[in-house]
């Protein structure tokens, strides 16, 4: 067992040098991707996911059209080069279908689909790099992409993964940790603190569950701050550009913009 990497060493550091409750570096890119209505690229450490949203638009699948609300259609593709070992996954891979179903059911209660009867909202998820926390990255990126597409949401959905090493809870797991530890992913709506998704594919002692669950809910708030900042920056930039353009040529481009910080 000497060759094995220590999950949590004596100094309280994890294999990548983080503390127990430390999240990985998050970067968010909300720039326009092609003809998509909304798009977002999020990285959690080495995990990178791109989501593009099309719609609400005319439902192409007549049979699945709902007369009172929009249909969410989640399609996920995993790049063959995204993992350590190169492997091509088909679109119909069970694992992928399962993940997209989880994402669909996470967003079903959050998106105000009743505003768009007979429409369809397409969410295309592209996994570019994987290093643990795949579901959390997909959910966070989908939230951001839906917001950039102007789709009405009840709230952000912020997801984070967590695990337990013997009795110590850890947050935001890498692949290495995910393989060794019982882990779960929690998605929360930060304003109401409602939970829209909890998944656990491993076994965990029932007494440990509460700790890690509460911790993950708390971490969701932190991720919310990051996501909110990214969305606000984009809004300020776009509104600023529009105002400058609208006032052109005589107006002043430095119109006051304020953001409520709560």
């Amino acid at each position, binding site marked *: 067992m000497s060759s094995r990497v220590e999950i949590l060493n004596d100094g309280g550091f994890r294999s990548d040098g983080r503390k127990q409750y430390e999240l990985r570096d998050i970067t968010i890119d909300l720039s326009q991707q092609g003809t998509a209505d909304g798009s977002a690229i999020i990285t959690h450490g080495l995990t990178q996911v791109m989501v593009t949203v099309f719609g609400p638009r005319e439902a192409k699948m007549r049979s699945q059209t709902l007369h009172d609300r929009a249909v969410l259609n989640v399609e996920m593709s995993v790049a063959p080069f995204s993992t350590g070992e190169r492997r091509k996954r088909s679109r119909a891979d069970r694992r992928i279908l399962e993940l997209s179903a989880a994402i669909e059911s996470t967003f079903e209660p959050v998106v105000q689909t009743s505003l768009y009867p007979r429409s369809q909202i397409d969410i295309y998820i592209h996994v570019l790099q994987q290093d643990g926390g795949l579901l959390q990255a997909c959910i966070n990126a989908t939230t951001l992409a839906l917001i950039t597409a102007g789709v009405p949401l009840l709230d952000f959905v912020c997801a984070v993964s967590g695990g337990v090493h013997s009795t110590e809870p850890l947050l935001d797991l890498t692949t290495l940790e995910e393989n060794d530890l019982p882990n779960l992913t929690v998605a929360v709506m930060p304003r109401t603190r409602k939970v829209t998704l909890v998944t656990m594919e491993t076994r965990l002692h029932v007494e440990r569950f509460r700790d890690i669950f509460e911790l993950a809910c708390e971490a969701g708030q932190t991720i919310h701050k990051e996501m909110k900042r990214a969305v606000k920056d984009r809004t300020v930039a*776009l509104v600023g550009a529009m105002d400058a353009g609208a006032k052109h040529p005589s107006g002043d481009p430095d119109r006051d913009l304020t953001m409520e910080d709560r």
Partner: protein
Amino acid sequence: MISFASFPSTSEASASYAQARHPPEVEEELGMDLDEDDFDEGVQRLTVPGEPITSSHAFMRGHGTFVDNEEVIASVAGTVERVNKLITVRAVRSRYNPEVGDLVVGRITEVQPRRWKVDANSRQDAVLMLSSVNLPGGVQRRKLESDELQMRTFFEEGDLLVAEVQAFFSDGAMSLHTRSLRYGKLRNGQLVSVPPILIRRLKSHFVALPCGVDLILGLNGYIWVSKHVKESEQEGEEGFDAEAVYSNRNDVIDDATRIAISRVSNIIKVLAAHFVPLTDTVLLEAYEWVVDQESHVKDLLHDEFGEHLVASLGVGIRQ
């Protein structure tokens, strides 16, 4: 209990109509009068989904908001707008929200019994009824069975057209009409698609640029850039000529006009990429600047050149 439909109801439409028609200076003055509570006017307020805006006791919720726990909460990221007691949040970027009377450019996606389906960049395909188009042989003619059978001779799948929003169906889908000589099938040009919010309501959405290019600024974000047609050559009332109106053939377009069309299209794409609202003055200025540079049309596609263009106009940002 007041219920809100997902599409513009008449009262709201008229409210936003009044707001949209004022020139900016007047609007600011009006804004002063409306000053009340925690709404400091003149400063734009921006929100993100899930952010509380105000109490639901004092205000009514409009588009882009919902009520929870006696608070009006934003559901989209954008600017907060207020008309008296009505709070709405306008998303920075979203699909086109149709309103009656809007001019739109669309593409036929389907031919159905007595109607066409039109993609107009909205949440559902628009409907163009056979009874809402001008048919050959007089404007006020009854639609016959024979017309139903030859609908594809008027509009086919993939055809582009310019139309006006006539009404809404109960599910919020819009119904179009082309009962004007200005509306109908489009040819002699090219389509450019931009975010709908960049197209403001103008006095006229038919713009003729002096470089021999006509523009149709559809409020749904579709812009038709085409060869200039002289007023006198437009198909007249008496000589309503179905051949010409529903023709699928382009006229002969000389090289100079082709270059002008692609130049204008590229300018629009550059301005849209920098999120600059499109008006005829901005476009004209940009066109003059580009011609001054004596550059090739395709230079506009380089990021750097585009940035120079936008900088020279003193507008916009790089996203």
